[in-house]
């Protein structure tokens, strides 16, 4: 995959990152991808992608309510909150 300024800017936007030196990132990401392309030398067309590192399946929880933390504890680490709500920068304009 060809990495150019557009690709870096798009990825930065998706990750909500402020990338200061775009050209540097273009070079870094190109190097990483070129290195990974080495893997394409192997024929994996008949190999299912590996998603889980364990063979286990079906880890269920019973449908029983547990109150693990209080309302006060929940709001304690929010950057901004009043007694009811977590507060964030206004998302839409009225």
């Amino acid at each position, binding site marked *: 995959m060809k990495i150019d300024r557009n690709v870096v800017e798009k990825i930065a936007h*998706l990750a*909500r990152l402020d990338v200061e030196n775009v050209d540097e990132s273009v070079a870094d990401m190109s190097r990483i991808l070129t290195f990974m392309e080495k893997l394409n030398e192997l024929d994996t067309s008949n190999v299912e*992608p590996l*998603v*889980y590192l*364990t063979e*286990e*399946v*079906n*880890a*269920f*929880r*019973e*449908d*029983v*309510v*547990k*109150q*693990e*933390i209080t*309302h006060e504890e*929940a*709001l304690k*680490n929010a950057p*901004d909150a*009043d007694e*009811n*709500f*977590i*507060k*964030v*920068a*206004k*998302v*839409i304009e*009225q």
Partner: protein
Amino acid sequence: MIRNTVYDNYELVVGLEVHAQLSTNTKIFCADSAAFGAEPNCNISPISLGLPGTLPKLNQKVVEYAIKLGLATNGTINKYNAFDRKNYFYADLPKGYQISQDAKPISVGGHIEVNLKDGTRKKIHLHHIHMEEDAGKSMHDQDPFNSCIDLNRAGVPLLEIVSEPDLRSSEQAAQYLTEMRKLLRYLDICDGNMEEGSMRCDANISVRLKGSKEYGTRCEVKNMNSIKNVQRAIDFEFKRQIDVLEAGGTITQNTLNFDASTGVTSVLRTKEMANDYRYFPEPDLLPVVVTDEYIKSVQAELPLLPEQLIHKYTTEYGLPEYDAIVLTDNKQFALYFNEVVKFTSNYKAAANWMMGAVKSYLNDQVIEITSFQLKPKQLAAIINLIDDGRINNSVANQQVFPELLKHPEKNVEQLTHELEVFIEADDNELIGFIDQVLDKYPEKVKEYHKGKKNLIGLFMGDVMKLSKGKIDPKSANKLMIDRLELHK
């Protein structure tokens, strides 16, 4: 003459996405209460807050409910289920991704059937049903400088039900939603309350020239909180899109908002602003493998669904289809009817009482059948008294039923006795009443013999009044015809 308008040249194409909030006790991936209406940010946990280091754990009930709906909509249950992350940033989604199912949803395909006004039924196909978590709630009008976030809803289980673009009118869309809501309520997995947001709907709407095989460009309309508003939004979009095309324009694939107060849609997001969700497998949750035995055990627990009840009522009970549809419109109403017919075999009379006297009483009082004070057995007792010729129908309707509503604790037999409305008149008494009436109307009796046979209704009415209803209409009718012959 019907005037052809330019709108008649076009066909509407609609697919619906329904989000059904499941009525489980807890959220889909953590043990917080999933109840509606708590104080803000009280039903929360480190998992629903999206704190680092927390791990989701799947609520088994959600899988069970999803399979129930999949089976009830004739879908194919996926034996191997996985979850995926749908990535986007929004303040009410603290993790930065929603856990959903993308590649391997729980149920694939299937269909439901809907009744249309013209009496036909139409099969609406489903694309798939998948499990996912709800987001929190953002409020933008409580504080002038900030948006307020309530995470009680974050992580409440949802089923997203995606239909194929099979709907061709706003009426079909409304009927589809009505049927889907009925199904959710019969299965007892979602309360289907659109105003409270426990059932939500997005509509993908496009138009095309009639006869065209290609679909037009679609717009997705969001934020409709009632079936009526879905219908209004579809009707509005149908005209708007045709107007654009007829003026030589093209439809842009936008996400639209529907304003219920103006009935108008407006652009919420353009295609360029559309999110790139970058789905990838959720590594924090193990796959869910469903066995045939498990599917069979869920199948065995399914209640009778509206369609099966309609079949039972029309074939086993011999009821007209119309009656069966009305009786099954509401689950609790159908359950009540099922109880009534345990105590009487006059199914048609039971249906008539339910659809007539009982329904109009419930409507007058604005109550649900679950709050109705009479027991199914009491209603059946009234029906049986009529069938046994011990009270007549109008007395039952006008005296026994209303009185029983006032004294639901009373036994029907005893109450009828107290009201003194049992049929008592013997034939001699009856003949006395009949002759009295026929003597009163000599002219009408002549007209009867000349062919106005329906005058018998008038005579019977008077006999009924004279006897204060304590006669058996069947034998009175027979005697009436005999006596009329003697009054020639």
